[in-house]
């Protein structure tokens, strides 16, 4: 099915307006299979909006999103997920009334209708993210760091080809960050393609081989971490003109 020479994920001219505010303006980039791309930008740059557009939560006003050459625009989020794009949320959204394992089963049930199989997969993912011993706890009893891991396990259980992580270290106790970073690295080593929104520049430059910087809804830089971190427009967006050069 996969057409040769086509990038796994193609974002073409994605524009999303909210009234007078253009949250995404003509965003264009490709992501190759196996890449780990960091998405950075100051507050309000349009990072989360871009994830909403890719995952089908918003319909962009203009532009195309393609996975393996197939259009995703117009598909509902669950269909986008079945096509192979999973995401986590910045504001964590576990199903509070369910156990940890049941939460992950919801993800697994997008791929199998056999509950027993879904349960086995859920336990396997919980083991992978280091939450096995919490499998039967209620989601609401988890700490923030554990809930981040739960979100990850639930997304992974949908067997994505591309995983979108929105602030996986945000709001997490400092001590939990290295473990989460290592987990992301491990998923990448396993061949998963990842787009990672991250405020913490240390984290993002440590995990990503490529960084895309957004500012006021537009891509202002796209390249290797060391190049992007020194880019004139990026420095100006984060710190101001005084720090350029």
């Amino acid at each position: 099915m996969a057409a040769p020479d086509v990038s796994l994920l193609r974002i073409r001219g994605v524009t999303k307006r909210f009234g007078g505010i253009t949250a995404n303006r003509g965003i264009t980039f490709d992501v190759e299979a196996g890449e780990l791309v960091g998405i950075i930008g100051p507050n309000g740059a349009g990072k989360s909006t871009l994830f909403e557009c890719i995952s089908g939560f918003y319909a962009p006003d203009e532009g195309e999103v393609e996975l393996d050459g197939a259009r995703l625009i117009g598909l509902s989020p669950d269909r986008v997920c079945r096509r192979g794009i999973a995401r986590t949320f910045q504001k964590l959204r576990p199903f509070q009334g369910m156990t940890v394992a049941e939460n992950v089963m919801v993800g697994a049930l997008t791929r199998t209708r056999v509950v027993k199989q879904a349960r086995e997969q859920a336990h396997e993912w919980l083991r992978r993210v280091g939450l096995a011993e919490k499998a039967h706890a209620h989601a609401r009893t988890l700490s923030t760091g554990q809930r981040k891991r739960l979100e990850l396990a639930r997304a992974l259980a949908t067997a994505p080809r591309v995983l979108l992580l929105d602030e996986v270290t945000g709001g997490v106790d400092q001590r939990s960050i290295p473990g989460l970073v290592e987990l992301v690295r491990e998923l990448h080593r396993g061949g998963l393609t990842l787009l990672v929104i991250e405020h913490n520049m240390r984290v993002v430059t440590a995990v990503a081989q490529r960084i895309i910087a957004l500012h006021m809804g537009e891509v202002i830089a796209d390249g290797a971490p060391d190049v992007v971190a020194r880019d004139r427009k990026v420095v100006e967006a984060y710190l101001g003109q005084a720090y350029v050069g």
Partner: protein
Amino acid sequence: MSAPAQLALQDLDVAYGDMQVLWGAQLTVAAGEIVALLGPNGAGKSTLVNTISGLLRPRAGSISFEGRRIDGTPAYRRAADGIAHVLERRRLFPFLTVHDNVVLGAHNPRARPHREETLARLQTLLPLLKSRGGQLAHTLSGGEQQMVAIARGLMAQPKLLMIDEPFLGLAPRMVAQIGELVRRIRDEQGISVLFIEQNVELSLKLADRGVVLESGRTVLSGSSAELLRSAEVKRIFLGDFAL
């Protein structure tokens, strides 16, 4: 710094449940100083200011104001002691008038007897308090709301005014006006100001000094001129590759 600190925080640890956000934070503000509290998202800036005003309790460490420990006292007592806190996103009472919002700031027993004279003085500083006094707060623009929120803080007759993101979401012209207001508050009334802001250059051009938080630790502090040249600031906001 030679002048004795008006506000001094030492080794402050603050946590939300199992999540520790501040780790041994240090900060001083001298009387009459404008200090910018800087740092990337999630560094703990609002948590620090909320702890100073008493909305949060530190797990360890001390807060002294004018030489006295205040970290055990409730927030309303700290307001009476002279610490006013203008909250992030202004938090006006949307369905009260501008006048009523402002007057509520003078609730503490030290400020209350002087309410009318303080209001009259603020009306000269900010004419909109009078011209728009009868208008419901939610009908004002963001910048106007910020002015009203600052006025409400000033009604408490503070010695230290803390403002959480005074410029958030404001148009450039309004940013300049609010910056000018902050400077006048200090120059004309001698009130110290501690403010949080995302835009580093803008903050340092307004402040005398800056303190930078990184992942819950106060890692850098210096005069605005020093910080504007600092490679370390670049590293904190943009990572090691930025150097």
